């Protein structure tokens, strides 16, 4: 399976909870900041994602979602 990782950059506060629970080191904090002044997460290694949704469960700000990529698309 391949997964699409959606990150809402404006909601993300760069807390790294998602990063800390990702079993595959998919995520990382980017270097730019959003309008609120927060650095936000990027899916640096999205290919490694196994769709476990641990990141989604732990994100306090509903800033991340992981969806199976329509494989055919």
């Amino acid at each position, binding site marked *: 399976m391949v997964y699409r990782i959606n990150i809402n950059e404006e909601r993300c*506060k760069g807390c790294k909870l998602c990063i800390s629970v990702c079993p595959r080191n998919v995520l990382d904090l980017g270097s730019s900041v959003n309008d*609120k*002044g*927060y650095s936000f997460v990027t899916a640096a290694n999205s290919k490694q994602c196994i769709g476990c949704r641990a990141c989604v469960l732990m994100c306090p700000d509903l800033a991340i979602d992981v969806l199976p990529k329509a494989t055919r698309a």
Partner: protein
Amino acid sequence: MEHSLIIAGFGGQGVLFTGRVIAEAALLVGRNVTWYPSYGPEQRGGTCNCSVVISDTVIGSPVIDTPDSLLILNRPSWDKFTPMLPEGGCVISNCNLVTDARSLLRGNEVALPASDLAAAAGDRRVANMVLLGAFSALQSWLSPDHIAASLKRLISPRHRELLDIDLKCVEAGRKFMLQQREAVRHD
């Protein structure tokens, strides 16, 4: 003589501290001073500001409606405070963070790359001290010595390293401003 100053930015940018440094310095030179922070449900992010009034006589309002100076650390603060600036007022902003800002209708504007200067001095996050240095260059009563003394009062000796960086940043801001002035003068 009274001087009123608003410092504004995001929480965490050292806005309140910058005001404290100026207030303590004012006290050191024997002037009256009031320092008034914006206080919100502080634990939440968002903007932050403080008002400092320095005077030779008794200070009436610690709340400022027409600031003589503004030190601006982010864009929302620019939008909020620059309209209050009266003719002859002065705004000093960190142009690394305050981008796309529409220009002023009145007053003087000084934009300096405070984050870059702070980074050069050792810590990009200490842009507030750069602005403070720049401000001091415009205030004859606010000497580097007084700033240093004030900083020493406020920073516990345990955090000696912070003090050093702060001092460097102040110096960088001050120098930048003096050079600019020089430049203007030679224009």
